């Protein structure tokens, strides 16, 4: 589903000079899998995911999503993905229903099909109690649920979660991880970035540890443990980035 080869991204920073945000990063993620990008803040996770979401263009390398090139076929890629990030906000002056409906319409969904899909999603994500509340009045948890509904409305085969649990309380974070697991069961290809080891251990089928724009290690959790002779992911992580 997702193929990334030698993806690099650098930009000029006034203080630091040329910053290598990503350096020849390569990975693959398949359908029915959660691919975890594990790394500290500033490791390059968001840059990689923004390139997959066609918001940024790579300096070098190739990335395809469901067969579409992220640079030359950006509009087609955007039809294949749903994006949720910790920093993604909802519109302050729109209700949950209006917002999700708007993005469903942008994806070209017909009114009746859209309504049915929204009813189902709102029930599943427990949005119905606050469906007519304006974004400005929602709590962080409510906003994140609405963002997930917005990302899922067109039933995309690929989902990108960029630090989606940051700022959420334990209950909402747990519910979110449960939702992602359910989506994996439905055969979605999920790319999930986090800096929380517990989440990666619990959820990801494949993990890539990223630091300073480079992937330091990648594979399934058992294979990583075996390869580096370390059972504890946190210890393994610190040893790699040290």
């Amino acid at each position, binding site marked *: 589903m997702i193929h990334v080869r030698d993806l690099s991204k650098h930009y000029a920073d*006034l203080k630091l000079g040329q910053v290598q945000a990503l350096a020849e990063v390569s990975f693959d993620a398949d359908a029915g899998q959660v691919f975890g990008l594990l790394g500290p803040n500033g490791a390059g996770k968001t840059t990689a995911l923004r390139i997959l979401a066609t918001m940024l263009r790579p300096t070098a390398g190739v990335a395809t999503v469901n067969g579409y090139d992220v640079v030359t076929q950006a509009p087609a890629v955007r039809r294949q993905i749903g994006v949720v990030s910790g920093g*993604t906000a*909802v*519109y*302050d*002056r729109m209700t949950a229903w209006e917002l999700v409906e708007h993005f469903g319409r942008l994806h070209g969904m017909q009114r009746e099909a859209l309504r049915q899909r929204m009813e189902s999603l709102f029930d599943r994500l427990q949005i119905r109690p606050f469906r007519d509340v304006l974004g400005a009045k929602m709590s962080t948890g409510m906003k994140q649920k609405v963002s997930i509904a917005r990302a899922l409305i067109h039933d995309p085969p690929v989902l990108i979660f960029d630090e989606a649990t940051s700022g959420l309380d334990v209950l909402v974070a747990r519910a979110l991880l449960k939702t992602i697991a359910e989506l994996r069961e439905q055969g979605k290809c999920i790319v999930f970035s986090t800096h929380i080891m517990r989440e990666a251990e619990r959820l990801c089928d494949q993990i890539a540890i990223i630091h300073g724009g480079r992937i330091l290690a990648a594979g399934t959790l058992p294979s990583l443990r075996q390869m580096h002779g370390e059972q504890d992911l946190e210890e393994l992580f610190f040893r790699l980035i040290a």
Partner: protein
Amino acid sequence: MNWTNIQLIWFRELRDQLRDRRTMFTIAVLPLLLYPMMGMAFLRVTQFLQEHPSQILLLGADRLPPSPPLVVDGQLASPVCPENEAALLRLTVQDRHTDRETIESVQDFATAAIARGDYDAVIWFPEDFARRLNAFRRQVDRIEDSDSKENELGKIQVPSPHLFANLADDKSRIAHDRIERILRRWQDQVVREILLSHELPEAVIRPFALRSRDVSDEPFRRAAVWSKVLPFVVLIWALTGAFYPAIDLCAGEKERGTLETLLCSPALRSEIVWGKLLTVTTFSAVTALLNLFSLVLTGILLFGRLMAMEAGLDVGAPPMSSILWLTLALLPISALFSALALAVAAFARSSKEGQYYLMPLLLLTLPLMILSLLPAAELNPGSSVIPVTGLMLWLRALIENDYASALRYALPVFGVTAACAWLSVRWAVRQFEDESVLFRESEQFGLGLWVQHLIRDRGNTPSIAESLACGFIILIATFFGSLYVQPAADWAGLSRVIVATQIGLVAAPALIMTVVLTRRPAQVLLLQRPRWSTVPAAVLLAVCLHPTVVLVAQQIQAMYPLSDEVIRAMQPLADALRQAPWWQVVLVIALAPAVCEELAFRGFVLSGLRHLGSTTAALVISSLFFAVTHGMLQQSLSAFGVGLVLGLIAVRTGNLFPCIAYHLAHNSLTVLLGRVSSEPDSLPGWATWVLHPSGNVDLEVGYTTPALVASVILSALLLTWFHRLPYERSAEETLKQRIAAHRK
């Protein structure tokens, strides 16, 4: 582009803005309150001004002649001061302010009294005024011999009364005007008495009266005032109405973090921009319309009331047809301002930053609006193609019922407005496609850090910002250079100025920036070995295209004729050029600019602009810089076209030498044609196939029609040849080509 997506974004943004109280206040509430409140304030101020009497001190009342009387019983005499004027004056009469009066002591006293606010004006009659005036009268009575009258009268000097007022203060200025009017009337009475004493009628000094009559109809007179006010108000509010929604829709969304969700949606960036543009345009148009309706309604009621009060205002209610015309013209105006505001606002990271960026847009637009309000401004071929100004003049013509002019210039006015709006939309789309604009983050800024960054992180070729900076540095340097350097009187001085300007102010900035800011100077300045055929081909193109360029230049000059002052100022230059040896002229006027300007504009500036990813945009912007350095508008317009051709050669050949060759050939032909023009009879016989006397004062020799036809055909062939040359694309241009290939 998908219209459904545009419509969805448009309606969403509309709903979003309509739920925002700040926007609603600016767009709907403010216009409805503003003008009625301004009207109320105006009425109050008018009343205040009408009822405020001026405090006048008259010093030296004892020196006034008994006849004709100026002051009677402490008040101004009624023959010189009618009742309505007397009501606006509070007169205090004193014989003197001190025993030893001099003009200096009176001035000090009056200045202090006016500054304290005791009086608004002080009128002083000096010592001997009455006595000298009487002496003057007697002298007039005595002199019978008309020949000696002037000499005799000149011996008696009547001391001047002095009127002291602070003209920088409105109250004092009004008092000055009021009392001056009365004193002039009194002076007339003095003259009348002298004439009567000699049994001469008053008609001696005024044998006829000049009467002026306004032949305009009342509706037209009214329209003339409103035709200036209404377009200005509508345009200002169309701009203001676009500002806040544009900031909220771009910078506001970035600030709130909602822009990313839209960028991840299937909507194309162009669809997002069009959706947002339609929203901003809607609010801009509605703001302007509501302001227009509110102003017109207030105007009808207010001026109706003022006319009923006989306030002396010759302004009636605005003509109703003006509302219709302004409403029709609002769409292109709002679209233009909205696209500009959107493109500028897209660059801002926050709403606060957006306000800073939009202020220069207002400052750039205001002079164009004010230009149309100047008394000499009228709708003509030249003004009709000036953005904003042309549109305002066109509206003025419509409101003044000058439909013939409006119809004649409708195409250029709307063509220019539509072209500007289209370019602004393209700019806004580009802003939304540029990740460095969309995901700009705050970073520590310091001058040292910035300079270090410029040198440390320099690329092979300049960045877009560095190219633009170079262009502006050259423009500013040449502008100040032209103000600082005195016009040379002879050819030697003139040639020194031209060469110094070209090397010091045009080439030097580009060369210094190339060395300091880039890693590959030869690549930046396109100084590789040229393909041998391109240099003679460029010279041939310059020769073939020259008749067309001359024709275009003549048409431009017909459209924007040079003023007499400019022609007079250019005369020494023309004389110096005629007298100088021809090879020196070619060296200074043709070679120096050919090398220096090509290094700057086709070298540094164009190389950096190629990072835009659009060759057309790079050519247009570099040609604009090249054009504006030519100083005069007439020269700039034709230089813009030449700049496009030179840019095309630079891009297609990847080399500066063909550009220098073209520029040298073009300039040489122009100066040589100018020299031939001064001696048309010296033309050899064969030259008459190509050249003929044109009858033009400035260029007495022009190209013949067959030469012009051949010029167009051969130039088209040569330009096609250049256009088909394989050329090296920038990384951005290659990427754009790849994306376009996938879309197909």
